């Protein structure tokens, strides 16, 4: 049996494998290092001590501007988006019990993108920008329920869910393209965002708007952690152990939507993160959802931050959308997964 770290008293009792605790700390360390790297590197190289001084609010005004206004929000956004998509992917993979599930394949990404471009094209003038994540969530929810409902035929098999998801995603992608082509958006750079995903041009308002969504959804996810573990054993066993499966499934679907959709609303349709970050996390920690969640989130954050960093650095002065590099890393990994028959 794995060495465990356990707490037991009148109020609280739980146990965790020691190996997982170490892995969690290591991933957290990587996360922080990548943030610092991203703040140092760019068009203008700023050394680490100067970055730290700028972060504390002192030092050269120019450096403070670059670090505090240009780079930091962008990096934080990349981190949050990566974490959100990774968490959403983890929830979906647990719920559908198929390691190939992810928000892109299940149509959540497509629904959120379609709703977001509709909002930006038609409603952004009349309604405030604060409504953007709400639209995205609504779009993703509609898409997810549509997919779930269409895949329902006396219960949902994961295969049917994935196939229907591919169909609905194609339709959503078509709608997104249509709206971009037909709208005033088509003249701006923002059109590209919706096709690939990018954190270019993020400011602090965006970061502040996204954070609450993430925080609340993570709390909810941690609360449901044990139930998620149990339902992985199968509908019948889980029901036998006392889980109410139908309700749980809907809640988990809703949870994955509110995790992914706001992130997509701000950064566009970045694919593959939701798929591969949980898998990478699974290599390091045990299967328990409560520990997989933070590690997947951190892994996803690192992935998107690195992709954005490469996008900024590799083809200067051009800024390649982060989504391109995520796909570049993600697709081969996905291929590797298929090769290893991971499902």
């Amino acid at each position, binding site marked *: 049996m794995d060495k465990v770290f356990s707490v037991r008293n009148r109020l609280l*009792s*739980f146990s965790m494998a020691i190996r997982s605790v170490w892995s969690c700390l290591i991933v957290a360390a990587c996360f922080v290092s990548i943030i610092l790297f991203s703040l140092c590197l760019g068009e203008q190289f700023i050394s680490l001590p100067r970055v730290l001084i700028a972060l504390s609010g002192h030092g050269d005004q120019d450096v403070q501007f670059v670090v505090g206004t240009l780079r930091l929000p962008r990096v934080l956004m990349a981190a949050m988006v990566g974490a959100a998509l990774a968490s959403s992917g983890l929830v979906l993979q647990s719920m559908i019990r198929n390691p190939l599930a992810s928000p892109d394949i299940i149509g959540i990404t497509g629904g959120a993108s379609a709703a977001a471009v509709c909002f930006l094209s038609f409603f952004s003038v009349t309604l405030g920008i604060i409504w953007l994540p709400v639209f995205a969530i609504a779009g993703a929810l509609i898409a997810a329920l549509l997919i779930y409902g269409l895949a329902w035929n006396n219960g949902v098999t994961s295969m049917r869910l994935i196939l229907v998801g591919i169909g609905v995603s194609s339709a959503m992608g078509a709608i997104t393209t249509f709206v971009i082509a037909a709208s005033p958006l088509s003249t701006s750079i923002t059109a590209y965002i919706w096709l690939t995903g990018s954190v270019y041009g993020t400011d602090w308002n965006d970061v502040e708007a996204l954070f609450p969504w993430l925080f609340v959804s993570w709390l909810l996810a941690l609360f449901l952690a044990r139930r998620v573990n149990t339902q992985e054993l*199968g509908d*019948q066993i889980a*029901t*036998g*152990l*006392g889980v109410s499966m139908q309700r749980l499934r809907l809640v988990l679907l809703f949870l994955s939507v509110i995790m992914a959709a706001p992130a997509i609303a701000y950064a566009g349709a970045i694919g593959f993160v939701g798929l591969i970050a949980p898998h990478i996390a699974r290599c390091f920690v045990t299967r328990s959802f409560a520990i997989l969640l933070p590690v997947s989130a951190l892994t996803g954050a690192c992935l998107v931050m690195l992709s954005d960093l490469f996008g900024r650095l590799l083809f200067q002065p051009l800024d390649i959308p982060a989504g391109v590099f995520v796909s570049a890393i993600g697709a081969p990994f996905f291929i590797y997964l298929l090769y290893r028959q*991971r499902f």
Partner: protein
Amino acid sequence: MYLPENTPLQSISLSLGYEKKTIIQSLDLAIKPNQITVLVGGNGCGKSTLLKAFARLLTPSAGHILLNGSDIHSLSGKEVARKLAILPQSPVAPEGLTVEQLVRQGRYPYQNWLQSWTEDDERLVHKALSDTNMTELSARSIETLSGGQRQRAWIAMALAQDTDILLLDEPTTYLDLTHQIEILDLLFELNQNQKTTILMVLHDLNLAARYAHNMIAIKDGTVFCQGAPENILKRDMVKAVFDMECHITKDPLFDTPMCIPYGKRRVVNKKAFECV
């Protein structure tokens, strides 16, 4: 409502169906406590459906299932799970799950957010592992085990649930003979030592006769007959329920009835046929 005394699990006027088909119509059935009851019947007769209804996996279209006198659907999932454990047919474990992690899951009905690993939890998990002789294998992942070991792991999980009633849907299907006997012996011991009420579906009539205290023969969604194997395993029952001519003899090792089917075409020992 007629409530026979001392029955932990019973159905009252139970009707069950899928879509337009009715499988079970108005069935009254009481399960005897502290005994092993086996449901037997031909393919599609409704025995698995009935078991699932008892396990709260299917909702009846009419009638009730009573667990210790209360309607099972009026109780919460966790309440039911503390009294009744189900092992469905061919359960699938997620990849990489170890035996110990699986057995721990059996404690779910007793845990909540704050208390997820109490002393009771730990003790009962270890007890379940030792009762099923799985302690040495507890760190192995489920897919690396043999069929019999895997089934023992699932039974260990059901044991960790610490219930009075255990329901099993064809626990011996897909197992070879050795493992079939291994599992059934384990269940028999459990019933002897802990007085667990066991209700299971078996497809092998002879094994059912050997291990059951009660047999219930299901035909076309109704109870054809029920009782101790020596009382009900007779030629006319097998003919009616399985549409098969047979010869009933006594198992030389266990003294329980044993059914030897005639089959359709071959006649090898003419004299034996004529004697019965």
